[in-house]
């Protein structure tokens, strides 16, 4: 497995775990009292920054470890196949982002608050990133 593929796996898993924790907590906070809580929660705010901090730390540490195991691969620029994989993976992620953005705008007409809208935007960006890294892994495995 190449350095780029390992890197994509690490980022995909970290993204998945980090934001599953966040959105599960956010759902519990917002819907925990049996009704929609529209007030921003300081606990959720702190959790978000803690998770982002640990996401960055783990990304750096894991990338240092895999780069140390394959230093030649890690220092080499992307070759033509890797560039093509990176480019082709962006396309489906962009469509997810586009559809998600329009759906988020549509929720304005349902009377959502900016607090919920911010979470909706974050959710859409998260799914789009998962699709991007997921498609990279698909192309690395199945060919491009």
């Amino acid at each position, binding site marked *: *497995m*190449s350095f780029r*593929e390992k890197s994509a796996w690490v980022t995909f898993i970290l993204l998945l775990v980090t934001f599953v924790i966040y959105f599960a907590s956010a759902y519990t906070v917002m819907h925990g009292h049996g009704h929609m809580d529209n007030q921003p929660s300081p606990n959720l705010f702190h959790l978000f920054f803690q998770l982002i901090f640990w996401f960055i730390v783990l990304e750096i540490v894991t990338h240092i470890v895999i780069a140390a195991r394959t230093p030649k*691969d890690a220092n*080499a620029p992307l*070759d*033509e*196949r*890797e560039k093509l994989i990176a480019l082709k993976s962006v396309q489906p992620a962009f469509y997810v982002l586009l559809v998600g953005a329009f759906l988020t705008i549509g929720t304005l007409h349902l009377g959502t608050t900016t607090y919920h809208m911010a979470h909706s935007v974050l959710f859409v960006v998260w799914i789009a990133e998962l699709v991007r890294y997921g498609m990279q892994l698909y192309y*690395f495995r*199945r*060919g*491009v």
Partner: protein
Amino acid sequence: MTQQELADCVGVTRQTINAIELEKYSPSLEVAFKIAAVFKMPLEKVFQYRD
């Protein structure tokens, strides 16, 4: 010649050479010519087009 040695000669990763061998990736003309040049063979001897 190993995949790594060919990859180093051509300027791609070993995984890309492997993907070409397994027909999971069609290289650019530039890389195809470089591979043919490494083996000192004409391009059509190294690569064949199949539908």
